[in-house]
């Protein structure tokens, strides 16, 4: 399972991407509960207007996708994002 967290926006509008490849059984065993805990069906950035200059997060895990304003990255989303930032491969893209 591939997990991607793309952070865009912010005052500087620099896009940062963290990518995790959960390939081994141990990886999947650890990441699946983190992914499953997120309310994917209720994530809709359009219903939560972003605050000026805050970051926007586009998150993918396997076939699931969600786009969230920074202020909505709380609870299980925050756990997923922080883990991806800590363990994922970091890159920048314009």
């Amino acid at each position, binding site marked *: 399972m591939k997990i991607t967290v793309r952070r865009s926006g*912010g005052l*500087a509008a620099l896009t940062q991407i963290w990518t995790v490849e959960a390939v081994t059984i141990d990886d999947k065993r650890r990441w699946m509960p983190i992914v499953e805990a997120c309310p994917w069906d209720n994530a809709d950035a359009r219903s939560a207007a972003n*605050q*000026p200059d*805050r970051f926007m997060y*586009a998150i993918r895990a396997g076939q699931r996708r969600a786009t969230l304003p920074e202020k909505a990255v709380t609870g299980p989303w925050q756990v997923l994002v922080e883990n991806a930032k800590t363990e994922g491969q970091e890159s920048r893209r314009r």
Partner: protein
Amino acid sequence: MICSIVPPYMLRKLAAQDEPRLRAVARAAKESLLHIRSLQAARALAAPATPPGIRQAKPGPPKRTIYDAGTSEKLPGKLVRNEGEAATGDAGADEAYEGLGSTHRLYAEVFGRNSIDGAGLPLDATVHFGRLYDNAFWDGRQMVFGDGDGQIFQRFTKSLTVIGHELAHGVTQHTAGLVYRNQAGALNESMSDVFGVLAEQFLKQQSAEQASWLIGESLFTEQVQGAALRSLKAPGTAYDDDVLGKDPQPDSMDGYVRTSADNGGVHINSGIPNRAFYLVASALGGRAWEAPGRSGTGHLQVAPCRPPARSAASPRRRRPPPRSFSAPDPQSMTPS
């Protein structure tokens, strides 16, 4: 109701120029006037009443309060400086205090506006937000500043243009209410960039010719190949760095970027109206906070603006591709 950043009277003046060196400017102004007429026809709906309290005859003094989040993400944090109190000795807190004061002075003395909401709203700011937090933002009630990561960014209070930028988001919220997405969002961002640079130019008493027209100068560390986050004078040239890449801002609708990132590219396409403001200011010459800046506040006070593009506030519909508009060469523009 007109929402263009350059007001029609200014366009009419530019369109009437018949000197050969100003032909490009006059042609662009005529095209813009035609476009405005078509927009006016499309917007022939009754305008909502202007909210009370937008214009104040006598702006009051600022009411600043600075908080310290202590690297947490809890707002507002610990109160560290109230209005009129001595400097704290903390660079971030004192820069925020002084920057808010400078920006308040611009609005009060030049535009006759009493703080963010026109009714003396207290200016609250939190510094040291988050751990290595690479950002500053307006949360709808206050300004928030991170310290940067130390590798790419330094603390975000270092630049008055950033403080002015964030405060201007509050002004836009209380006036035009531009939706923070796509073209309306890019205009929202541009307004903040314009008033950010005006705050700095007003403090330094710089003319349009003397000013840097940069947003976020001194934010980057020495390791970054770049002068600032954005340039109103030359969008797309603020930085070119191995790690960050090249400044992606377009300077005309020819380069308009369609993207789902960054709320529809609000910080990218703001380069287009930014450049337009710079061209008007440089063509008029002198102090940009005078005629061009006043026209900007005038348009913010027409509330609420209906965004020309699809946004959260307008229904989804197909629109024609953006008009092609090439900004005239500033070298051919001289004050009339």
